[in-house]
């Protein structure tokens, strides 16, 4: 409760401080490769099924929704374009980020939070390891590496979902759909589509770590940090999405 009263400015400042220290430590030895690989497995491989599933459904639903509008303008041959632009630029990165926020920001916050309240973090420092190096940096690296990959997979599966509807409901041929989907994508879209998940990943993992590390008040505190980590990182995803989109729109 006290945490709510404490000025949010102070929290934000604490967050920036932790973020700066963590990012600076990425290249510093010792690098805990084993922890990085373990986190990659849990964040990347662990999230793969759900990311693919949501990607497919969003492709399917969006194509269904679009089909009527496109038919009104007699533009059903453009289905691929519409689907691929909205998935690659927007839906893929944001939906994947929300999944990662729900699945991994919470996982990170609760894991570090329980370590905090059982004094494992203190023990680490007492026994010669820096928790930033040992706990935060591996999670940051793993998320920043895996999330763009997961997003690319979500994009691809989303396009496949779109393909099913384009062929069965709208009446495109597969060739027509693919060529219109691929042709429209400019280098700008690709950069935007990979840049977003990279930045989202940094924010999500750091927010999860931040709330985990500042947990207090026993197991109840762990629940509280977990909730905060998910809410705060999800909000940040949308804020940053607007910022990055704005930058790319003004660039073109």
């Amino acid at each position, binding site marked *: 409760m*006290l945490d709510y009263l404490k000025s949010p400015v102070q929290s934000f400042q604490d967050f920036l401080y932790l973020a700066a220290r963590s990012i600076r430590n990425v290249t510093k030895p010792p690098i805990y490769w084993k922890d990085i690989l373990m986190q990659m497995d849990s964040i990347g491989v662990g999230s793969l099924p759900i990311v693919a599933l949501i990607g497919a459904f969003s492709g399917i639903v969006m194509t269904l929704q679009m089909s009527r509008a496109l038919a009104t303008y007699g533009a059903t041959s453009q289905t691929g374009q519409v689907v691929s632009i909205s998935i690659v630029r927007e839906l893929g990165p944001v939906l994947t980020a929300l999944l990662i926020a729900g699945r991994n920001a919470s996982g990170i916050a609760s894991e570090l939070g*329980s*370590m905090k*309240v*059982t*004094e*494992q973090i*203190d*023990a680490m*420092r*007492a*026994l*010669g*390891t*820096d928790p930033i190096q040992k706990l935060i940096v591996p999670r940051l690296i793993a998320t920043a590496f895996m999330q763009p990959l997961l997003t690319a997979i979500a994009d691809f599966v989303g396009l496949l979902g779109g393909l099913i509807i384009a062929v069965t409901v709208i009446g495109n041929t597969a060739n027509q759909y693919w060529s219109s989907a691929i042709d429209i994508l400019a280098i700008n879209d690709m950069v935007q589509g990979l840049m977003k998940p990279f930045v989202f990943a940094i924010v999500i993992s750091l927010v999860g770590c931040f709330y985990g590390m500042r947990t207090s008040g026993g197991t109840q505190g762990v629940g509280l940090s977990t909730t905060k980590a998910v809410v705060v990182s999800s909000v940040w995803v949308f804020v940053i999405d607007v910022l990055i989109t704005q930058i790319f729109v003004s660039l073109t």
Partner: protein
Amino acid sequence: MPGPILKFENVSLSYDGKLVLDKINLTVNAGDTFILLGAAGSGKTVLLKLAMSLIQADTGRIELLGHDITHLKETELFGIRSEVGVLFQEGGLFDSLNIADNVAYPLRNQKKLAAPEDEIAARVQESLDFVELGHTLDKFPSELSGGMRRRVGIARANVTNPKISLYDSPTAGLDPITAHTIMSLIVKQRELRKTTTILATHRYQDGAMAANYHWDDAIHDVVRAVPYGTYAALDTTFIVMNEGRIVFSGTQQQLETSRDPYVSQFVLHQPPPKIGPSGDRGQQLSV
């Protein structure tokens, strides 16, 4: 070692505007045993964490093993902390590591203690044998009982042969038999390895045991150093804390004759009688 092992000078700390330690002064010399008594929330844990700079004091100065640690950076602290053993109140064992890896953790991660793997294995085995848990190497903390986890914590604290060991409430929440075992291990460590010891507890018996019992290797148990009714002292100082202040500091005898209502409750488990034995009452600090 010249000078004290640990020294607090006017150390104060507050959280959210509430004073949790108020101008603490404390000097621990090599070979001393300090018993930190105090009710829940009196500041025992905070004091122990300050002693190895896991938290920072607001004001005052802390000296550990001859270094002024008040404003040291984390990287500079690691070397000093490698000479300190610590058992945390909440255990602090790593859930994700088995018992052997938990105990080996300081040996693998403290740069100053780096050793080849076979030597580490031998020391881990020795340290676990010391607490009579040599057979649990491959188990995980969650598979052990609370008392066993406490013993693993003691093994991990002392595997590095520290100059000073800090034990935070080692007997809290344990049955009398297990609590006795834990305390005898702490006495054993102190006697066999000459470790300076600070023990936070709310059980007076723990302090009485540290003050009056020796470890006897022949019978493999602790024995009283002097007959019942007399005080062995054994370089043991009792400190009583109340709401962040040290309200008593002295020997066991002084503690037992103290008539301060708060202090004497730790001995008698009830408020003191109106007329008590006269005698040296120890250093009564204002409450």
